[in-house]
């Protein structure tokens, strides 16, 4: 790739990052090092000396480590099974296994509490007294809930990586007498590493900075929740700023360490595999045996959301010390959809998310190209830069945007012009900042997916097109993008569904009812006294169903089934 273009992309991306990522972050971080205008390290040192903050960081680290391990444990065997075996119902099971990805965890937590609460379904089913499962498990509960929501990321990456491993590599190993697990460990696993690294990084950093799950499970002794709690007393307490800084730096360090040890070698396959992997058909009880782990994972992962479903149909107050609700009704739906902000919020979310994904896709491909295909200095920096949003909790970034917006809306030229007011003042119209927030937060998925795709696609395929006279854009459009389309679609779907489900940005930035995105609407419904959880569940079910339809529809348009989107 030519250097001039690489440098332009580098400059544009850096500029965007400076304006929309570093600036808001800078405003927030500055607070951590500033003591009435003077630079100080007091707060940074204080974070480590304060036993509560130190414990919070340690707990977050444990949560991230545990979640990543659990996710690999769940996803890797499933990916391997689906790559090797053709079992009855594979199509449907392969699609269902991804469903937790499109289920908003903070909605799921409502159901989780209904099922696992002291007077919930599980205790009634087991016939035991009011055991507080969630309270007992402490950070274990956070790990389990996060892993159940995050394993599809690893599953998709592992499947895509497996599909890209040339079977001839394994055949060569088998030919030399290597078989079974040794073959997997020595040959397949190293070749999958770029994909596994992509998935592992996402899961680790996500769970390290996840706010929603521990917050709703009421587990307050971890860094993100401490930051969130302290934001309420913003201005009075500079420690959350310093805490955010520590999290930011440790995420960046973790990522770098992982990249150096795991993602170092990019094993480019020579073109795509010359022989296709043939999944071995298994029928009868063997087929069922292969399908069983999938069914088990699907069941456990969907339990919270089945809880939401049951809640949405429950007559308020009828699910108490019973396995399932005692009385059912459709009133919750009628009420939730009848609410003035509901329909508008669905439309708003679609619009914000679509814009964010389009912006993301363009930026993600450009960055991946520079990182993988160019040799300019600083491409490693660009790669790290694009990953940074994962290390920053959404609410910190959202707070930064709020600060920028507040600053801008005080300017006379903004005050006096409807155009600038609608663009820059979130109180008037949050669209720009919401779209930017969604894009920035989800950009890493797009970049990681595109990078993994490019690393596994031989550069000779692009050179062949250049040789025939195709310029850069033509090559991109006709060769590169189609070849890594599986990765791009995976990344775009992730970005889209996560944008639709984004909580912290939405709750903080959307301040006018007619601009509410769907998550803010659910949150607002949840706040209603008495009926809150039932109405929120009803809208949650609508959101989940809508998202599922959108994604399945997209996969149908592409002429492929959902599970196969991630294989070529």
């Amino acid at each position: 790739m030519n250097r001039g273009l690489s440098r332009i992309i580098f400059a544009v991306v850096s500029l965007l990052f400076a304006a929309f990522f570093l600036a808001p972050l800078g405003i927030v971080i500055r607070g951590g090092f500033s003591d009435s205008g003077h630079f100080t390290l007091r707060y940074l040192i204080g974070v480590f000396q304060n036993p509560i903050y130190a414990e919070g960081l340690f707990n977050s680290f444990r949560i991230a480590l545990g979640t990543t391990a659990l996710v690999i444990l769940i996803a890797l065997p499933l990916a391997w099974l689906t790559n090797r075996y053709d079992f009855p119902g594979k199509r449907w099971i392969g699609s269902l296994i991804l469903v937790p990805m499109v289920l908003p965890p903070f909605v799921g937590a409502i159901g989780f509490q209904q099922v696992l609460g002291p007077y919930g379904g599980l205790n009634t089913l087991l016939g035991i007294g009011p055991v507080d499962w969630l309270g007992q498990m402490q950070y274990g509960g956070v790990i389990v809930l996060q892993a159940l929501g995050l394993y599809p990321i690893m599953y998709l990456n592992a499947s895509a990586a497996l599909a890209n491993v040339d079977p001839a590599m394994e055949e060569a190993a088998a030919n030399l007498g290597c078989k079974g697990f040794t073959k997997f460990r020595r040959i397949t696993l190293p070749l999958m590493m770029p994909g596994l690294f992509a998935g592992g990084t996402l899961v680790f950093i996500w769970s390290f900075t996840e706010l929603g799950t521990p917050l709703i499970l009421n587990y307050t002794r971890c860094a993100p929740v401490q930051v969130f709690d302290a934001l309420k007393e913003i201005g009075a307490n500079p420690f959350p700023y310093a805490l955010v800084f520590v999290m930011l730096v440790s995420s960046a360090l973790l990522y770098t360490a992982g990249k150096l040890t795991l993602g170092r070698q990019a094993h480019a396959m020579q073109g795509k595999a010359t022989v296709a992997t043939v999944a071995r058909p298994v029928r009868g009880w063997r087929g069922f045996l292969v399908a069983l782990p999938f069914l088990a994972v699907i069941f456990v992962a969907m339990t919270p959301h089945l809880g939401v479903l049951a809640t949405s149909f429950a007559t308020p107050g009828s699910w108490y010390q019973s396995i399932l609700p005692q009385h059912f009704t459709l009133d919750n739906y009628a009420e939730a959809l009848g609410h003035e902000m509901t329909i508008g919020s669905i439309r708003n979310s679609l619009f914000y998310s679509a814009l964010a994904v389009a912006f993301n896709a363009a930026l993600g491909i450009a960055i991946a190209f520079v990182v993988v295909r160019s040799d300019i200095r600083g491409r490693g920096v660009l790669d790290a830069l694009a990953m940074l949003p994962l290390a920053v909790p959404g609410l910190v970034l959202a707070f930064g945007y709020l600060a920028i917006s507040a600053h801008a809306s005080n300017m006379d030229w903004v005050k006096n012009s409807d155009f600038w007011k609608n663009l820059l003042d979130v109180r008037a119209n949050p669209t720009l900042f919401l779209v930017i927030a969604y894009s920035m937060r989800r950009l890493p998925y797009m970049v990681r997916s595109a990078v993994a795709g490019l690393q596994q696609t031989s550069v000779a395929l692009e050179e062949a097109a250049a040789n025939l006279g195709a310029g850069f854009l033509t090559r991109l459009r006709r060769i590169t993008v189609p070849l890594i389309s599986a990765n791009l679609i995976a990344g775009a779907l992730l970005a889209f569904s996560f944008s639709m489900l984004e909580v912290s940005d939405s709750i903080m930035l959307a301040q006018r009812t007619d601009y509410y995105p769907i998550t803010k609407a659910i949150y607002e419904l949840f706040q209603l006294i008495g009926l809150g959880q039932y109405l929120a569940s009803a809208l949650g079910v609508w959101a989940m169903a809508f998202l599922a339809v959108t994604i399945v529809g997209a996969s149908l348009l592409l002429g492929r089934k959902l599970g196969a989107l991630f294989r070529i």
Partner: protein
Amino acid sequence: MPVAIRLKEVTKRFGSITAVNRISLDIEPGELFFLLGPSGCGKTTLLRSIAGFYTPEEGSIHIGDRDVTHLAPDERDTGMVFQSYALWPHMTVAQNVAFGLELRKCTRAEIQQRVAEALAMVQMADRAAAKPNELSGGQQQRVALARALVIRPQCILLDEPLSNLDAKLRHDMRAEIRRICKHAGLTAIYVTHDQKEALAIADRMAILDRGVIQQCGSPQEIYRKPTSRFVANFIGETNFIEGRIRSASNGTAIVETAVGAIASTALPAEPLAQNQAVTLSLRPEVIHVGTEPKDPTNVLRGQLRDTLYLGEIAQHHIALPTANGSPLALKAFELNPKLIGHECEAKEVQLWFRPANAVLLAS
């Protein structure tokens, strides 16, 4: 119209490694030119520099009248066949071939016609709708060739195009490639490490080693008149006999060797000095074993150690007694062999060769 390709002092470095070191070449219009050398010699780097995937640090590259040194690959109008074929897996055979024509804004009818012609030329017309991964290696190779040729490029660049094929197919395809290039009147540069391929179809070839051209010439010149030990050893098989010049005059040199004096009339261009250390290169097929000498100049006696019977030839290993005691091993081919069977082994034999076939290397 076929074009000339001229390289002037081209140098390409990767970090501290100089992959191509001040290479100059003049390739004539319509010539089928080979770059030949062991792996790591810089031949592929040179080809990729001509295609535009590398930009040389020094020197210039001209294709026809155009200085393409700093042009992007897509502005050079070369057709390249990649070692891995690099067929796009998401397109059919026909779409792969049509790609270059679409970029050249040909009409749909013209594209259809030219794709059909190109596929017919490489005998792949019946597989137009197939995807590349449904094809065998030989079929993929032919599609790659069709894709490069269909755009009627100014020149065609082939990067070890046959290295992934089996021997029989390689044999057929190399003749096919020459036929197609000559039929289209194309200037072609062909990179390979397979000397048989080069000898069989090249108009001229350059032998590269460590980024430098060791020798450039027609297959016959390279084979019969190598100018260095490297080239003599790299192309074909040979025997080296070291010695010193006793006399050199009138186009004949007498070399004093461990097995006696040997006369040579295949001399290097530069003048030879008395007592200069030289090497004689003797191809196995120029050494006649067990027949009456037709030329009495160079006649030696030795012991037949063993014989490999290969059908059309026999390969004899002969030990020549030397002054210092350890015998000199020599390999000789006998065409339509008679000296075969175990009774021949350990037999005293007489061997002879013509002075014109004893190539004198000045090193």
